[in-house]
């Protein structure tokens, strides 16, 4: 789930983009973790995430994925994730997870100060934290900032630059709605970390304010 570390976007957009996911460690809490991972996902599901999934089975936006079957299929080593779009709901999820005391490792990707505050209100102190230091190297080979904002929502890189451009084009030509285009991108993301609601918002904004206006070079 380093794939959730490097999501790009302005602070306002990132405020509506939180990925909560579970992880286990071999020899520590992985063995026998499957029922706990399923319970984690059941708790997340109660709060209506915009996406959920696991990398072995796929995400809820894929054609033949049924959520009950997805949850039933989680195994001991599964890395399962759910995406929420507001801190208040995330707070409720965290509080319920604390009460459930599952003993599996739970992580959140999102604005660090907001997540810290969420932990404080839930009565816990965060254990470890990780920052992105951005993109280095041959940044001149990257596409426009807007394309990067879609692409980095699936850090495994399953949503190609070409697909993103095609979806933007389809919305521009009014052949697809922002919702349809966002869902198409979400289908490519295997682990369920892609935020289709944020993608839809970005596409709607583009339709209102113009498409791909930013420079190609992705400077930090």
């Amino acid at each position, binding site marked *: 789930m380093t794939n959730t570390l490097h999501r790009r976007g302005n602070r306002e957009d990132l405020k509506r983009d939180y990925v909560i996911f579970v992880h286990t460690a*071999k020899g520590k809490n992985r063995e026998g973790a499957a029922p706990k991972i399923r319970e984690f996902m059941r708790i997340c599901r109660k709060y209506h995430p915009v996406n959920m999934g696991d990398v072995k089975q796929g995400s809820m936006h894929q054609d033949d994925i049924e959520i009950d079957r997805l949850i039933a299929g989680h195994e001991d080593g599964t890395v399962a994730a759910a995406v929420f779009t507001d801190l208040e709901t995330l707070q409720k999820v965290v509080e319920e997870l604390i009460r459930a005391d599952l003993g599996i490792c739970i992580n959140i990707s999102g604005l660090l100060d907001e997540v810290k505050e969420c932990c404080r209100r839930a009565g816990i102190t965060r254990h*470890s*934290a990780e920052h992105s230091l951005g*993109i280095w190297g041959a940044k001149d*080979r990257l596409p426009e900032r807007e394309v990067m904002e879609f692409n980095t929502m699936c850090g495994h890189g399953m949503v190609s630059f070409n*697909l993103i451009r095609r979806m933007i084009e389809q919305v521009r030509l009014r052949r697809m709605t922002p919702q349809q285009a966002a869902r198409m991108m979400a289908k490519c993301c295997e682990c369920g970390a892609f935020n289709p609601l944020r993608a839809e918002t970005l596409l709607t904004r583009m339709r209102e304010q113009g498409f791909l206006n930013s420079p190609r070079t992705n400077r930090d």
Partner: protein
Amino acid sequence: MRGALNLHAIRVGPTMDIDKTRCVGCGNCHIICTMGVISLDEEGKSVVNQDECVECATCYRVLRNENYPPWFVRSIRKVLSLFKLGYLADVDICPTGALTLPELVWPRVLRAQFSNPTVVHPGTGVPGRGTDEIKSNDVTGRLRTGEAGLVVEIGRPGLGAFFRDIEKVTIALAPLGPVFEPENPVTHLIADTTTGRMREGILDEKVLSAIIELKTDMEKIPAFLAALEKVQREIDTVVSVGVASRCLPDGTIPHEEWVQKAGYALSPNGKTNLGLGRPLFREDEP
């Protein structure tokens, strides 16, 4: 069609490929391809650039196999063209099921292990990019007080990387004496951690991205970032860099100070381990 393999299309072969007898050149796989390395050949059939393909299998997984006979699709096209109309399949469809999933052999299998997130890394047992980072630090104590974790993901976002580029980075970092994470798929491919040299025979393999994962003392962060600053100019791809540490008892993040001292900006977003894993690691454990 997810998970339902097209048995007629599978073959034991070295690379992701497109069955030319079935392909109707609709171009959907060109759009879905994460590396943008599928194109039309002179016969109007799609072809994969095998040097640049990273075997992520996204085309195979995402494109639903409609399984139409190729003659049927071509006939429809011909009829439509009489009325000056075109045939456009939905973007997530392969009308004829022309994509074939190979059984990869060493060293090409590395491409799938580092690029296809549904493949579990054989060395770590973790799918995705196969890393642990801080995700289970509450139970493993991998990063202790005073230690910093550095994750250097080469090829991300969206460009991919050859192992010859990845090796340049491991060679640049090795003299600083890092502890390369033993349970990491890239570490498993480093032949000598003191020099950063990788195993022979893999340097021409391309992956979607690979994560070098190491830990060091907090005060060495500036030196590592300086080394990365230098080597980034020598590679023809992008690198996503992350820094992690165990929080102090009041929740503050100790690596922030060292990154800022080195002159780098920290992202407002990142990853937080909530500390709910059990049994919780104690600092006095060996």
